[in-house]
């Protein structure tokens, strides 16, 4: 079997000093070679692993023949954020997991090929989409993250007048405030949003639904509403010292870096504390993003503290490898007990305890149990808490009758409908923190449901 084409990367030693993209993308030659590895199965399984059902076999066959324009058109039939998905989707547990080649070796690099097609189109200049015939219906989409952008695009393509509301000053949601430049350049997000604007979507930033207007009001102003408000509320551990100066939620740390461009201080006014010894608590992609950002801000040492083992790390393998290559240290089976106070209410270190894995818990993962008497201290001046987020309750004020689950998530049926007539929801606001692509899948489903609803009402 021909080996999978390797993704060219920026040299680890150089990249820790800049915020430029790490993965450089396939050349045309590499894309052709990689596409040629596809066996063109009679019964392809890869599509089953894609939450937005991209017609993977067709687009890869097109790449194979050098028909790149056709390939991106095929992808865009179902995926309006191809350049983003090609970069941040966990393909290894989605489409690529189902690839027949994965059984014996390495699957076709579907994500990298998707990225290649999208990047090539962008370099050439994206053609303006044809606007659909207006239906005379209007839809409000709340939240300009992956779910909202996808829903807005599909609804606009169907001919509805779409208004997209965003609370922050920039669109993209987690793509803009959360995922760093070195993993997803913001210029790409901006171009994807421009494409959606060209479809006729009216984008209103600086607009906090729940404060400036309520959901109840929007329901009367619009024929339908989609809620893609995400899971923006940071969780803290509730341990001693968490409010000390130098303790950040990953959301705050990454928002300062990405949205406010604190890494370019003082050219940009928003400051960030550049720690020398940084501890990141958590083992997901957000923890990796925070750790790698801290290194780029000049930290001498970055430790990831995670209470389970290597196999349980929720982050993508690729991101864990990137982090290790760059020098991030993994302190696994370790849990923070308290944050130690130095001078003037600042952080001086974290007292941790060693853990061991016991019986599986309700999530199916083995439950970490503290090892008595194994406490030790890691020195630190910055601590970043990346243990997850939960849905922001702000949308709930003035949304009479909207059913919400125990963890603050909005309850929907399997077509994306909420308990309110003419309101659908999807993405992290429904599932709790998950992936970009699953939010996009939910946005897509909800757009379809809203389309059907608007046909009948």
């Amino acid at each position, binding site marked *: 079997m021909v080996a999978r084409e390797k993704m060219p990367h920026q040299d680890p030693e150089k990249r820790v000093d800049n915020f430029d993209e790490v993965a450089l993308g396939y050349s045309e030659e590499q894309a052709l070679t990689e596409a040629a590895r596809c066996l063109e199965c009679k019964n392809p399984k890869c599509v089953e692993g894609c939450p937005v059902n991209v017609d993977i076999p067709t687009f890869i066959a097109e790449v194979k023949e050098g028909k790149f324009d056709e390939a991106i058109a095929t992808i865009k039939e179902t995926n309006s954020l191809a350049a983003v998905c090609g970069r941040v989707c966990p393909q290894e547990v989605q489409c690529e997991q189902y690839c027949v080649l994965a059984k014996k070796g390495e699957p076709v690099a579907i994500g990298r090929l998707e990225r290649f097609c999208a990047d090539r189109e962008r370099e050439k200049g994206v053609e303006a989409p044809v606007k659909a015939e207006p239906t005379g219906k209007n839809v409000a989409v709340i939240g300009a993250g992956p779910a909202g952008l996808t829903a807005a695009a599909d609804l606009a393509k169907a001919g509805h007048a779409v208004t997209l509301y965003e609370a922050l000053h920039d669109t993209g949601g987690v793509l803009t405030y959360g995922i760093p430049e070195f993993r997803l350049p913001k210029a790409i997000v901006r171009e994807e949003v421009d494409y959606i604007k060209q479809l006729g979507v009216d984008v209103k930033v600086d607009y906090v639904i729940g404060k400036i207007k309520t959901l109840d009001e929007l329901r009367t102003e619009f024929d339908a509403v989609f809620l893609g408000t995400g899971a923006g509320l940071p969780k803290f551990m509730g341990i001693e010292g968490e*409010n000390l100066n130098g303790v950040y939620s990953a959301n705050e740390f990454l928002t300062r870096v990405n949205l*406010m461009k604190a890494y370019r201080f003082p050219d940009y006014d928003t400051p960030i504390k550049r720690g020398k010894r940084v501890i990141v608590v958590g083992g997901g992609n957000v923890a990796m993003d925070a750790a790698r950002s801290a290194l780029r801000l000049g930290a001498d040492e970055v430790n990831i503290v995670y209470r389970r083992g290597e196999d349980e790390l929720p982050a993508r393998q690729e991101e864990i490898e990137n982090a290790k290559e760059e020098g991030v240290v993994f302190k696994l089976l370790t849990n923070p007990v308290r944050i130690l106070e130095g001078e003037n*209410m600042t952080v001086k270190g974290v007292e941790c305890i060693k853990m061991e894995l016991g019986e599986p818990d309700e999530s199916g993962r083995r439950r970490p149990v503290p090892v008595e008497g194994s406490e030790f201290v890691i020195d630190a001046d910055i601590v970043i808490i990346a243990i997850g987020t939960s849905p922001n309750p702000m949308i709930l004020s003035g949304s009479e009758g909207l059913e919400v689950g125990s963890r603050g998530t909005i309850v929907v049926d399997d077509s994306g409908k909420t308990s309110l007539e003419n309101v659908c929801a999807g993405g992290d606001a429904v599932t709790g923190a998950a992936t970009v692509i699953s939010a996009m899948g939910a946005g897509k489903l909800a757009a379809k449901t809203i389309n059907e609803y608007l046909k009948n009402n």
Partner: protein
Amino acid sequence: MPYKILEKKQIAPPVHLMKVQASDVAKAAKAGQFIILRIDETSERIPLTIADFDAEEGYVSIIFQEMGKTTKQLAKMSDVDELQDFVGPLGTPADVRKLGTVILVGGGVGIAPVYPQVKAYLEAGNKVISIIGARNEDLLILEDEMKAASDEFHVATDDGSKGHHGFVTDVVKEILDSGEDVARIVVIGPPILMKVAAGMTEPYGVETIVSLNPIMIDGTGMCGGCRVSVGGETKFACVDGPEFDAHKVDFNLLMSRLALYRNEESECLENHECTCRGGN
């Protein structure tokens, strides 16, 4: 979507009033809420409490004191300029209802956010006693407006140049000692003033409310940078506040967190002033 500045005037030497066209914000605004603004692409987002608003005319007024780079830049702007971002109304509105006698205290630039509350408490049918204070007479703002909206009005200056010679808290104490049946005290001003006021009113057992102004970014509960400790619990000032029970707030933590970026703030300001001078 830029926001037009309708008016900008200096109302005390380092203090300015700015009226901004933001009709959707004005329609939804209530006393006690705040906005977050950003001047341009490279600026910080800064929270400022709403000083006045008019739903019909569609404007929101803010009052700020020149401190760091952003407020100094704002001070130089005028009615030909625009702000890139102006988000609001944020935070939980003040819990204004008929209680009886309410004392409202504004210290320094904190007089600005007290003003809409004075109007709201009066409208709700309360006896409103307002007390404003500053270091000296020149720094007093909104004196006429406050006086007009209050049943009883007092002034205190640290140097005695106007009204009571001393702190606003002395006047509050006098009123409480006089036997006046006070249902609530609202104090807004520098953290040290709010801390002192909280300590002073506690033995009297009168409900005391403060409006906190920690560092924040988004103002919607997303970053957690504005966390404050209230009664031993961590709260986000942007969504759980900005108003809290003064007797439960950990003011030392608030003050220490406010000082977190002091070095960076001076660096930013120095850079700005160098550039300004260089450009002139």
